[in-house]
């Protein structure tokens, strides 16, 4: 899989840390094309509820996915911190992901990442591929391929 964690001990990967509710999640920066502010989303009928609709990103029409709803959490509350992260992966079409806020960019070496067995049935574990330890907090690293696979 494209974003399987490398076994190389000293490899350092950059992650964008986002917040959803009280949790911190990390997305590998190489999949992130852009981060845009919340804008008007056009609702599309007859699609699963985790699709918020479509937006206009510089003349292209892109679908927007609610990570909260996809992970079975409460529905999004739009605030001034709400951001849409544009994800571009080779195996998938470009998509925007709605998150509560974007916190920072962190460098995590393989040593700082713990690969734990996840209970895939559990909400936050469903799309995780590891836990990163950074300063005081824990960051759930998202397997974006897994997130986008079943859409």
């Amino acid at each position, binding site marked *: 899989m494209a974003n399987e964690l490398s076994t190389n001990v000293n490899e350092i990967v950059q992650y964008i840390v986002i917040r959803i509710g009280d949790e911190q999640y990390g997305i590998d920066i190489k999949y992130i094309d852009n981060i845009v502010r919340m804008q*008007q989303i*056009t609702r599309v009928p007859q699609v699963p509820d985790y*699709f918020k609709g479509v*937006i206009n990103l510089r003349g292209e029409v892109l*679908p927007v996915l609610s990570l909260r709803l996809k992970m079975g959490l409460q529905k999004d509350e739009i605030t001034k911190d709400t951001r849409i992260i544009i994800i571009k992966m080779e195996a998938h079409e470009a998509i925007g992901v709605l998150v509560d806020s974007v916190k920072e960019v962190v460098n995590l070496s393989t040593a700082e990442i713990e690969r734990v067995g996840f209970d895939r049935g559990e909400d936050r574990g469903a799309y995780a591929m590891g836990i990163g330890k950074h300063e005081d907090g824990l960051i759930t690293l998202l397997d974006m391929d897994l997130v986008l696979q079943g859409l």
Partner: protein
Amino acid sequence: MDVSQYLDIFLDESKEHLQNLNTSVLNLEQDPENPETISEIFRAAHTLKGMAGTMGYKRMQTLTHDMENVFSEVREGNLKVNAAMVDVLFRCLDAIEEYVTTIQETADEGDNDNEPIIKELNAILENKGAEPESAPAAEAPAAAPEAAPAADGGGSGAWDAIELNEEEQKALEDAMTANKKIYGVTVYVQESCLLKAARAFLVFKAIEEHGEIVAANPSTQDIEDEKFELEFSLVIATEAPLDTILSAIKSVSEIADAKGAPFAGAAAPAPEPVPEKKEKAKKAPKAEAKPAETTTAVAPVKNEVAKKAEKKPEKAAPAKPDAKKGTKPAVNRTVRVDIEKLDSLMNLVSELIIAKNSLVSTATSAGASGNGLNEQIEYLESVTTNLHESVMKVRMVPIESVVSKFPRMIRDISKQLNKPMELYMSGEETELDRTVVDEIGDPLMHMLRNSADHGLEMPEERIAKGKPECGSIFLDAYQDGNNVVIEVRDDGNGIDVERVRQKAIERGVMTEEQAYAADDSDIINLLFMPSFSTAKQVSDLSGRGVGLDVVKSKIEALSGEVDVKTKLGEGTTFTIRLPLTLAIIQALMVVVGGEKYAIALSGIQTIENVSPKDIKTVESKEVINLRGTVIPLLRMDNILETESKRNPGADMVVVIAKKGDKLAGLIVDELIGQQEIVIKSMGKYMNKCKFISGATILGDGEVALIIDSNALI
């Protein structure tokens, strides 16, 4: 020499010539004696050979060379066209096509020598060799003067074939008054020469140092376009002696020889030929031009006669491009453009229209109605609309390019299945967007095969039913408003709906009750489901259950739709409906539940104001009676999963949409107006919604969805 830069042109032109050959050979099969078809084939084969040679594809060259030899004999009347020969020729064309495909994929022709085909071609030639030589040779001279009257026009060489037009005649007279000498010169290019046009150009240059070229045969334009075989003739006005000119020409590399004499054509029209001289002049070119010609090997007594016979094709070939002169400028004014460039042009036009829309909405919201802004915006609108139309037209190509291969295909199927059938096509000139045309070939092929294989009955069965023994398949294309309709129709047995119904139950696609409750058209639509084939026998052609479902998905991917009508015992009609253009459409903007939607104008018949009192209920469906027509109503707020904000008691705005002869009324909250919109794909995540065909970006940057009214009806 590096020829890779010519590869694209080579591929394009080879395909054109192959298509041409296929059509011509097919015609030949119908009408084996038609001299025009035969020379058409000869020319195409010859050009193909030349091109393959230039590009260094030896195997392809060898094969085309042998094929050309056969045509050459046919053209001279030494060989008669028969069914066996046509079969070999078709196989030969297939083999050449294979070379071209291989070249396209790998830039190399591969290593298939196609020995068997070459052997068969040679066998055809040898059989002819067994015939007495005297017969064609005796016939030919009679025909020769007819074909090339100019050859006897006096003087002493091939240059005498040059017919001077008024202008050239005048130039010639001017030159003579200026005391210049007029020579006729024939230049022979080496057979191995790769860049004939370039050599000819150098020859022109060399001559122009000493004098001027007054006339040429073929025309200078044709020579520059490499439309000559191995020789061309010129009339030169010069002060220099003939020898100087000839040695200047010969100094150009890859020029085999050059012959010349004072030009007689200018002085008097058609004086009697001088026999000895003429023969002498002819001997040389013949020996060089066609060393491998079989006729040169006959006994010396016949030599002269045989040569005269040869004179005919030699003259006929260059004469043809001359005849085409009249139509030439039209050809020259076309430009080959990479489709990608057109795509980017189209994208830019799309961007421009979005920008224009946004300008319109800014101007409206700013309330800047005075100071001529509105006029300017209207002007801009008409310019962008025209620009879009022009770009769209540039992208339009006739469907001919894909359908022209079908007669050949049907012929092969007919032979393979031993089922006589005929394909009738109309509307080949109907134009569609290039991208659509490229994609439409496979679905059409599937449908035609389907008709040929499953649709048409075996001849015995047809006779028993009182139908003509030979089955008919029709391919009709025509434009209908903003759509192009392509119909594939056969007069075969039609679809046995009961059998499909049984099959559906058998396969567990439907329960028995469902199957019997479903009406015929629903049952027929099952045929478009993946892996649902009713053919009793799986044949080589179709019946593997791949086909109709592929057809449907392909057509739908092009925003089109496909429909079947069938009558048991009488035949089946498949109707494909395709949008004329995929990118930009005129749309009606409406509001439903506070959201903006676009509906393609082409699918809208009228817009009506309907009072809620007029809604009737028939079979628990809401309908209105509009001027005598009962039209089902669709509440768009329900369909779009939103809530209407309109006053329930007030009159409703109903958009009457039509699809073929079916109508439906779409109830919307309000109308915004007509607008030109650019269709944007929403990607695969969002395509689950069948009646939303895409999205568009409005002037204010907002995204509006496009309702596909066809999918709702």
